[in-house]
């Protein structure tokens, strides 16, 4: 990732300030440690014995930011309170940039961090991010300023779960024992015939899962947790998916919870489920199958859920429980994650998440990735019955050749009841519909055992996996990403070409031609891979 020279200079200045602040914080932390033997703050967390990952980094998530996110959740805000993303005009000098932020500083702006060519500015006083952005945008050196919006996972929970079966099914391809009974979605798009052409894709292709994380290592970490009556130091186990080989992970990165060097842990199960649709181990006589089962997965964690908030509350000594419905994916983290994936070899990015705020930062990050040859698949949104608001980044898909927003169909190939509609829907894929199909109509993949991460537990664990039935456009998007991975494995390098092929070969559903419910229609992997002959 390159950065303008003036931005680097400015960052050097900030680094000096940050270093000073860190020394002061460290001194304060030492004093606190003398007062209490147990880990009580996030600074102490780094000193908690770790059985597996002694070198794991500090937490990126601060108590302050967690509080902002909790406030956003409690008040139904679509942005992080007190955070704005600012892009300065080309040619704006370091001094001019500093002046703009200094102007804000008089209104108590406290921090600034660069994400590509965009600065994340934080204020401790002006919590209305729209007002904060407006104040920044008034400066002539600012190209745009916007609230740091939030995306959410909008999961449509089903509660369907079953252990993963063992034992290959003879004379069946794939031989995964739960395939025939559960994965109607792959048959619905003719995937077995597509596998004849591209059996699972190629390991040279990397798919970034920008989501709640996909656990890429195993170990135990100790977190301080509120149990309802007291705090306990809880050893929390985490492990990789038993049906997704750890050797297939590449360059995992967490942009919201752990700092660089820390593990990437999926504490929700959403990211693991999405990754499994793309790439779950297949023909291994165990569990379920994935679409592109030879490609590699880049876990990029940009979303926080209930347990992340509980851990940070515990470390900060805050009693009580977090909002169980909390899921927060700051656009700043999305933008960082997208750029990171593009810079580190990902060819496809899947983003099964969405918010309602328009963001130039997010759109610029998408453009950056597509320009680097990355295809982006996005969920179209699950808001059909809750106002059908336009979702972002899904909306931006139509502005780029090489990014697509997917709607969801159920087992009967009708639009799923929750699936958002709009002109930005470009393609449809199976996402499941429990209302019309019950447990047999949802998308089954292996993921973190859902009872283990239930918010009503006092102590979670992230080291056990089972088959879980999810539904949502979150599940549709990885079908598109998986198909893109198969296409890129066959040598299609341009994201725009991938989109063009997926569009051309889609099976038209609903109104003739492109429509707001299904876009161009249901993906047809076999037709996309087979191409056209002469006649």
């Amino acid at each position, binding site marked *: 990732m390159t950065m303008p020279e003036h931005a680097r200079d400015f960052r050097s200045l900030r680094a000096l300030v940050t270093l000073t602040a860190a020394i002061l914080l460290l001194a304060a932390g030492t004093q606190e440690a003398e007062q209490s033997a147990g880990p009580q703050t996030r600074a102490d967390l780094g000193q908690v014995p770790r059985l597996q990952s002694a070198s794991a980094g500090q937490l990126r998530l601060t108590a302050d930011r967690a509080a902002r996110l909790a406030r956003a959740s409690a008040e139904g805000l679509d942005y992080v309170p007190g955070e704005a993303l600012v892009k300065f005009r080309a040619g704006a000098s370091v001094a001019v940039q500093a002046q703009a932020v200094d102007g804000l500083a008089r209104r108590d702006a406290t921090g600034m961090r660069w994400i590509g060519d965009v600065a994340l500015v934080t204020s401790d006083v002006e919590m209305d991010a729209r007002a904060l952005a407006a104040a920044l945008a008034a400066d002539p050196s600012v190209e745009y300023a916007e609230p740091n919006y939030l995306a959410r996972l909008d999961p449509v929970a089903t509660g369907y779960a079953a252990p993963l079966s063992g034992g290959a099914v003879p004379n069946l391809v794939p031989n995964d024992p739960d395939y025939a009974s559960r994965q109607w979605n792959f048959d619905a798009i003719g995937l077995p015939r597509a596998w004849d052409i591209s059996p699972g894709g190629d390991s040279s292709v990397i798919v970034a899962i920008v989501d709640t994380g996909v656990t890429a290592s195993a170990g135990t970490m100790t977190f301080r947790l509120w149990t309802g009556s007291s705090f306990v130091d809880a050893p929390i186990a985490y492990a990789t998916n038993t049906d997704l080989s750890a050797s297939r992970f590449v360059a995992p990165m967490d942009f919201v919870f752990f700092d660089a060097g820390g593990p990437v842990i999926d504490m929700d199960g959403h990211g693991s489920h999405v990754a499994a649709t793309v790439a779950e181990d297949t023909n291994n006589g165990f569990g379920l199958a994935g679409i592109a089962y030879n490609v590699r997965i880049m876990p990029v964690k940009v979303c926080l859920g209930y347990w992340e908030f509980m851990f940070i509350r515990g470390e900060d000594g805050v009693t009580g429980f977090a909002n169980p419905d909390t899921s927060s994916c700051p656009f700043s983290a999305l933008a960082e994650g997208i750029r990171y994936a593009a810079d580190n070899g990902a060819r496809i990015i899947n983003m099964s998440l969405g918010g309602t705020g328009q963001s130039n930062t997010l759109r610029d990050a998408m453009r950056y990735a597509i320009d680097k040859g990355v295809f982006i698949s996005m969920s179209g949104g699950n808001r059909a019955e809750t106002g059908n608001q336009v979702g972002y980044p899904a909306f931006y898909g139509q502005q780029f050749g090489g990014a697509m927003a997917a709607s969801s169909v159920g087992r009967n190939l009708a639009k799923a009841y929750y699936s958002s509609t709009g002109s930005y829907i470009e393609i449809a894929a199976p996402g499941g519909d429990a209302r019309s199909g019950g447990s047999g109509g949802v998308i089954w993949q292996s993921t973190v055992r859902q009872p283990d991460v239930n918010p009503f537990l006092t102590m979670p664990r992230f080291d056990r996996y089972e088959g879980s039935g999810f539904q949502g456009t979150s599940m549709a998007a990885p079908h598109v990403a998986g198909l893109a991975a198969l296409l890129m494995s066959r040598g299609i390098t341009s994201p725009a070409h991938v989109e063009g092929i997926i569009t051309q070969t889609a099976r038209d559903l609903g109104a003739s031609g492109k429509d707001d419910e299904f876009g161009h229609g249901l993906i047809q992997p076999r037709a996309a891979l*087979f191409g*056209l002959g*002469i006649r």
Partner: protein
Amino acid sequence: MPATRVLALLVVCAGFAVPSLAQTPPAAPRAPSGPRAPRVEPGTGYRAFVVFDHVSLAASETFDAILGKTSLTAMGAGGEYRFWKGLFVRGAFSTMKATGTRAFVVQGQVVSVGIPLEVEIAPVELAAGWRMPLGRSQRLVVYGGGGLLSVKYREASDFAGSGDDTDSRFSGRHAFAGVDVRVWQRVFAGVEAQYRTVPDALGERGIAKEFSEDDLGGTAIRILVGVRR
């Protein structure tokens, strides 16, 4: 217009032009020098020949997208029977094969998906024409004609399933003109230009549909070598 088509056109023009010139009286009076050469080949006769065709396909964008070329080379054979005053009937066949890869057209660009495809085009010609010798020696003969085509078209791909491959026959028409020369006793060689049209053969669902090309014909330059009697 591709060079081959231009060449073909020139040959066709030449084919028709030469008989006209042959009928034009000489500009200056010449002394009689023996009996006048007949303008038709007398009696009946036959010719049997092998052919080598260079065919420029009408569906050029389609074939270029899949095969990476717009023309094919064919080999075949044929025969003619001259039955009355230079009129003849002809039957001939030829076959051409090529391999390419399946593809899409996206934003005007051809995107190969890397799946091999083999195509075979085999026209059968039934035609009638007229031959006219030139010069006193009658070694040089120009001819022209036209007739029907029945073209076998076969397309096969790796990974093809039921209904993916094509093996069909289509009808069309063709016209031709050429000149041949006796090179040794009954052995002759010739060059011929053909125009072929086989409409509605392509464009069903393949890449030809993307280019709105439906004609399996084209223009051909044909080399003939054979014997006559």
